[in-house]
């Protein structure tokens, strides 16, 4: 068998852009990624921390130090060599080790929020604020959920006045696209502003 390869063309590369999608369990991350991209399985491992050892039932597998976490992984070919990668990760604090890596060089993040469970989005918002990673809030409008005004949500989540909050339907391709466009526009605007907190 021959594994002949692209030596001459070896320098060809994708320009891979990462966008993070965070939010609580069941908020619609998988649906949103699937609406706008070709969604694919991607497994990673979570080291079992002391915290999760307390909450997870490890009886019978005491030697076990990792467990599998499925990520929502979507790929959108934009044009030529430009490819957008969406990574949906669980929002709980115990998954931050995954975000730390995903966040390096990421364009920005979307925090998907279910207005019936606002508190689920607190850790993600804290995370991105603290690391100065640009993000927008997308309110997934579930059937039957009370429609909140975005101003009410801004107040409840204690968000800056210029942080975009957008209503979306995670099932709709156009809506999911609009969420991503809102994020990129927001990053373009904030790219003009000097970073605060950096000497």
């Amino acid at each position, binding site marked *: 068998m021959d594994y002949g390869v*692209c*030596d001459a063309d070896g320098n060809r*590369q994708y320009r891979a852009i990462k966008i993070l999608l965070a939010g609580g369990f069941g908020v619609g991350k998988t649906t949103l990624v699937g609406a706008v991209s070709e969604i694919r*399985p991607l497994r990673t*491992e979570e080291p079992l921390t002391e915290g999760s050892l307390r909450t997870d039932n490890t009886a019978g597998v005491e030697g076990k130090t990792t467990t599998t976490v499925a990520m929502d992984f979507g790929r959108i070919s934009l*044009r030529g060599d430009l490819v957008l990668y969406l990574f949906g990760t669980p929002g709980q604090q115990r998954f931050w080790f995954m975000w730390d890596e995903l966040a390096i060089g990421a364009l920005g993040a979307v925090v998907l929020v279910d207005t019936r469970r606002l508190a689920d989005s607190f850790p993600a918002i804290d995370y991105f604020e603290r690391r100065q990673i640009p993000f927008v809030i997308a309110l997934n409008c579930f059937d039957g959920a009370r429609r909140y005004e975005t101003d009410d949500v801004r107040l409840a989540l204690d968000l800056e006045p210029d942080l975009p909050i957008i209503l979306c339907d995670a099932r709709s391709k156009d809506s999911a696209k609009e969420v991503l466009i809102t994020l990129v526009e927001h990053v373009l605007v904030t*790219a003009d502003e000097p970073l605060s907190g950096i000497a």
Partner: protein
Amino acid sequence: MPSNDERWLDADAGPVVRPYALTQGRTRYTGDSFDLVATVTATRSFADPGALAPEHISVLQLARVPTTVADIASDVDLPLGVVRIILADLRELGLVVISTPVVMAERVDKHTLREVLNGLRGL
């Protein structure tokens, strides 16, 4: 139905152990770290695939065209940590080159942002 807590560690627990058998129990890779969207490219023909484990060969085959780490992990359906160790092995053997993504500066530059924006609008 299992509770949320149990969900992490029953049916899902088995497969983690076996994939790491492919790495001889190693859970960390050696050499420079590489990103999830770093591009992997096979470097040259490899004459003796018999010397490699089937999983290493699968990964090498996927890298015949430049492919990202995340794409490879998804295609071979192995956990990311395992795929990274396999990739680091192949890199050590000189069989693949793993390049840092072009757009991995602290912030994505404005020109690229506009390209992304236009691309998204055109979807």
